[in-house]
């Protein structure tokens, strides 16, 4: 971006500055630390100048928003056209209670829904299964059958909202339920907008709600790609997630690297299944974390965008620019919140919100201050949503596109993260791809090492976490946390008993048998799952059929 002579001159001047000014100052006032690093342990220099980005070619490396390589953003007008979608992840207890929370959030100006399911639902067990004891309705809403799903979206017109569902192993079942509810509302599938997470690889790596082994899981995913391309064209069929990788303790570079490596694995699986890259790639979406290290995070999103664009174009030969656009949802980092002095978390979330917005996110969930303690209350969710609204309407950062683009530091760090991620991806390629690297425990081990290193830095007070290892106070236990009624488990069990009496059990058995047979063959499973769902077969029954055919995943344990 700069003239060669200019750079040579600058380098000379910098040596002078260092000798004449910096050294003198250092002699009198040493710096606070010998070495400064980002939260991901990247060394941070004293000053960044054009010298640090002399190799950047504006047109090739940055370009214009909405144009390859999309470093500056995926849309030509970004937030000047439309603000990001403010989407709070919510759900707990029963479908009735969660339905109330969704209506509250929509009343407060939220623009999209995001459904949290409880663990039994995420792992394909009904609420009356022995492994579900104590877990029903705890981390999200319990959904056992289409009946619950009908209640969950009661009074919410599915052609008007977009809905994100954090569901992975049984994603096809929940998507089928959503399609069936919409049909009952008179809304056809081609009008539905939303996202299913549907990212099994990161479940093996970091999040843990897997059911089936790798191969049948990849088949379920590519079946969804193919089905939605024809029937639910506006649906984002996967949200390839770095969020949980970061929560598990990875660095920013690892977050980008492992997420994109997973992305590559999905694209390869879909190609292998015979799909054409430009038919499914535009519906791939991503999900990243937002930590406190503001400038590193902004650089991370920019690096991820540029790298994915190149991968899609150069490695997979995509022709449609939409296939090259990395669109992403962001959630502020749960693991950055402290149980101590929880009010401080509001400030952390505000910084993370800025990071996501300055990084060009398409949608955002802001965590509530009490989430290191329990599920959030209505009041604390409101503050979290207001944080986004303040950044959107008062801070001014949404008025121009990629305002930090061109910063010597941000551009330099963007390139550094991209290069670091590329090195990881080629290492993963050498291991045989993301699935193999997970099987060998490589990715888990890399994350574990980073996580442990960070923990030790905090414990040695080399990293300050305000209120936790410095600036501590004596505090009383916080009051008014959200409690899920333990009776939810019983209520769900009763609902299942009732359902099983009312439904046409012969039809259920027929549909389940048809699914079982299809799973043994090669048909796309989505239509069979949709049929089973409509007959009011339960989530557990459907997943049991698939368990019988596919078997279950066994974790490689790494510490």
């Amino acid at each position, binding site marked *: 971006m700069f003239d060669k002579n200019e750079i040579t001159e600058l380098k000379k001047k910098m040596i002078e500055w260092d000798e004449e000014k910096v050294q003198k100052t250092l002699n009198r006032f040493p710096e606070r630390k010998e070495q400064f690093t980002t939260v991901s342990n990247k060394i941070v220099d004293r000053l960044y100048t054009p010298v640090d980005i002399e190799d950047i070619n504006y047109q090739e490396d940055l370009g214009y928003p909405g144009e390859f390589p999309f470093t500056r953003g995926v849309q030509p007008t970004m937030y000047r056209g439309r603000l990001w979608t403010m989407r709070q992840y919510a759900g707990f207890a029963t479908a009735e209670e969660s339905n109330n929370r969704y209506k509250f959030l929509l009343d407060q100006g939220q623009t999209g829904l995001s459904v949290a399911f409880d663990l039994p639902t995420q792992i394909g067990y009904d609420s009356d299964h022995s492994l579900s004891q104590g877990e029903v309705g705890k981390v999200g809403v319990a959904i056992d059958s289409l009946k619950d799903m009908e209640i969950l979206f009661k009074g919410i017109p599915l052609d008007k909202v977009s809905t994100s569902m954090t569901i992975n192993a049984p994603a096809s079942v929940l998507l089928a339920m959503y399609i069936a509810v919409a049909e009952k509302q008179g809304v056809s599938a081609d009008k539905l907008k939303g996202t299913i997470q549907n990212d099994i690889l990161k479940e093996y790596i970091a999040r843990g709600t897997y059911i089936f082994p790798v191969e049948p899981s990849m088949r379920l995913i590519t079946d969804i790609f193919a089905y939605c391309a024809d029937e639910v064209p506006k649906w984002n069929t996967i949200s390839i997630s770095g969020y949980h990788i970061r929560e598990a303790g990875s660095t920013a570079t690892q977050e980008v690297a492992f997420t994109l490596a997973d992305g590559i694995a999905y694209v390869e699986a879909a190609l292998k299944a015979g799909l054409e890259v430009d038919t499914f790639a535009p519906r791939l979406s991503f999900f990243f974390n937002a930590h406190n290290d503001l400038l590193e995070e902004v650089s991370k999103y920019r690096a991820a965008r540029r790298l994915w664009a190149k991968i899609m174009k150069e490695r997979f030969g995509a022709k449609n620019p939409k296939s090259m656009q990395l669109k992403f949802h962001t959630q502020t980092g749960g693991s950055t919140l402290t149980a101590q002095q929880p009010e401080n978390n509001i400030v952390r979330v505000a910084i993370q919100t800025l990071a996501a917005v300055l990084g060009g996110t398409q949608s955002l969930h802001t965590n509530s201050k009490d989430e290191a303690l329990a599920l959030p209350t209505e009041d604390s969710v409101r503050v979290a949503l207001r944080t986004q609204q303040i950044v959107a309407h008062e801070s001014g950062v949404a008025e121009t596109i990629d305002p930090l683009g061109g910063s010597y530091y941000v551009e330099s760090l963007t390139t550094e993260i991209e290069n670091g991620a590329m090195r990881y991806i080629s290492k993963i390629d050498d291991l045989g791809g993301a699935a193999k690297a997970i099987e060998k425990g490589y990715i888990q081990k890399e994350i574990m090492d980073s996580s442990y290193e960070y923990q030790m830095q905090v414990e040695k007070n080399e990293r300050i976490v305000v209120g936790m290892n410095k600036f501590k106070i004596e505090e009383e*236990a916080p009051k008014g946390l959200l409690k899920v009624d333990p009776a939810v488990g019983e209520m769900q069990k009763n609902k299942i008993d009732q359902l099983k009496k009312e439904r046409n059990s012969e039809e259920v058995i027929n549909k389940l048998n048809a699914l079982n047979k299809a799973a043994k063959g090669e048909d796309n499973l989505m239509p069979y799952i949709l049929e089973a769902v409509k007959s009011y077969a339960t989530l557990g029954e459907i997943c049991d059929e698939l368990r019988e055919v596919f078997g279950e995943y066994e974790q490689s344990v790494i510490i």
Partner: protein
Amino acid sequence: MEKTIRVLVAKPGLDGHDRGAKVIARALRDAGMEVIYTGLRLTPEQIVQAAIQEDVDAVALSILSGAHNYLLPRVVDLLKEENAYDDILVLGGGVIPEEDIPGLKEKGIAEIFTPGTPTQVTIDFIKNNLKK
């Protein structure tokens, strides 16, 4: 020579948040203990069986799913049924609200470590509270 302390680190229930469990497992190992980490999704029955088979001195249970009030006491009860509770120290850690802690201790969990606890605190607690 002092006997090496053996600890089972386990994730009860369906919860997949294992960052804390893994950090604790490694920290205990670095502190010279023998650590068995079970991986995810263990039932209380499986945990108790592993604890007895491995002849451990302590069981450290990590849980962030909110199911602690059911799953942690269940492990204690099963250890009692197997006559192993008198030998094995049972600890809990994770996102566990302050108000639930007295109840859990009453049911036989020796200590609960909440977010922000330095690993050294857990290490010291185990060393100072072994039952045998």
